[in-house]
């Protein structure tokens, strides 16, 4: 193909055709070079340009200037390693922040996993248990299971029943009080390992009023105290003692076994 057949614009572009093919910047240049690639005139131009460029690269550079472009220096500047990146203060700060946020998130997720309807009230009552002294309760020496009648007859509290697991233990005292949300709470002190029992209204759905039910026994912990909570007939029961979940589990598994 002859270059004279090219349009004026293409001819203009072809005069600027790059010496190296990797500098074919745009589509129009690529197209015009592809079109003229087999023409003698263009081949002569390319050979001419390549020969000139080779000589240009041999033009001596003053040693003081050449030092600026030594391979060694360039490599040092461009070297990139994971260790180097990890030592960057910005990366370090971001990494620490991410770890802290992740830690807090994991902690919150784990805490939520143990949550159940009424767990917040149960934790508050563990604080009450820690600060209660025997003199604050009315002295009553009987079996814990029999106090349901007392709560119903004297205080009008329905279904405030002590579960069978703790029904046979002797009591030291009991009382009924209202918490800050005016919910009526029954508290019983047992002779057995100074365990305290609490009965309080189960949490309800604020829209429907339905009791938020949960199955079996759940555990809560607060300031060295542990509580085992269950829900029956809209009333939550909690057995609390100073110690760990293990100490409570012993009672629950033993009695459940019976």
């Amino acid at each position: 193909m002859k270059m004279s057949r090219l349009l004026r614009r293409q001819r203009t572009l072809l005069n600027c055709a790059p010496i190296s093919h990797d500098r074919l910047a745009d589509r129009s240049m690529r197209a015009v070079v592809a079109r003229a690639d087999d023409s003698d005139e263009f081949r002569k131009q390319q050979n001419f340009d390549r020969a000139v460029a080779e000589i240009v690269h041999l033009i001596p550079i003053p040693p003081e200037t050449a030092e600026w472009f030594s391979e060694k220096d360039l490599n040092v500047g461009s070297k990139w390693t994971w260790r180097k990146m990890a030592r960057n203060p910005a990366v370090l700060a971001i990494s620490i922040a991410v770890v802290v946020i992740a830690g807090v998130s994991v902690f919150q997720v784990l805490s939520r996993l143990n949550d159940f309807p009424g767990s917040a009230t149960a934790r508050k009552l563990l604080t009450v248990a820690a600060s209660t002294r025997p003199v604050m309760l009315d002295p009553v020496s009987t079996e814990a299971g029999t106090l349901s009648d007392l709560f119903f007859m004297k205080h009008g509290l329905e279904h405030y029943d002590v579960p069978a697991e703790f029904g046979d233990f002797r009591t030291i005292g009991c009382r009924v009080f209202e918490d800050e949300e005016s919910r009526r709470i029954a508290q019983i002190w047992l002779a057995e390992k100074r365990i305290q029992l609490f009965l309080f209204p189960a949490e309800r759905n604020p829209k429907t009023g339905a009791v938020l039910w949960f199955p079996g026994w759940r555990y809560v912990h607060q300031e060295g105290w542990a509580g085992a909570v269950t829900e029956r007939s809209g009333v939550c029961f909690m057995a609390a003692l100073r110690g760990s979940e293990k100490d409570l589990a012993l009672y629950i598994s033993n009695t459940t076994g019976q």
Partner: protein
Amino acid sequence: MLGDSAKAQEVFQTTLREAALRAAQGELPREPFWLFRDARWRCLETVKEDLQPEALKLDEHDVAPHAASQIEKLEPAQLAVWISGAPDPQRTALALFYLDEFDYQEILDLAELKLNELSRFLAQGRQQLQAWLDAKQPQQGKV
């Protein structure tokens, strides 16, 4: 651009010193190739202070098939002097083009030229260089 390594060295160092100062003051331009553009203007300023070559109409020959072998016989310094003797902006166009570090759009941006101007300067440059080669090596020109 200058055809003189001592002057090139001086311009290079001045350009880098100014760039370092601007970097220290946080005043580095965001535009690409500003350092090359700066170096180019310093080269042109330096050349202005020198004796100016007479404006001559140079001969122009079509690029010959054996041009590559003629060019191979050139000393690099001879070619440098020839390019630096070209009037600007043709000199800038030839220098940047034969450095083979920029594509044509980058050269247009750097030398502040239009496409048809760059095209004309390069085409004329080839033909003038060919005429010079033919004058320097007449026996090969006749082959």
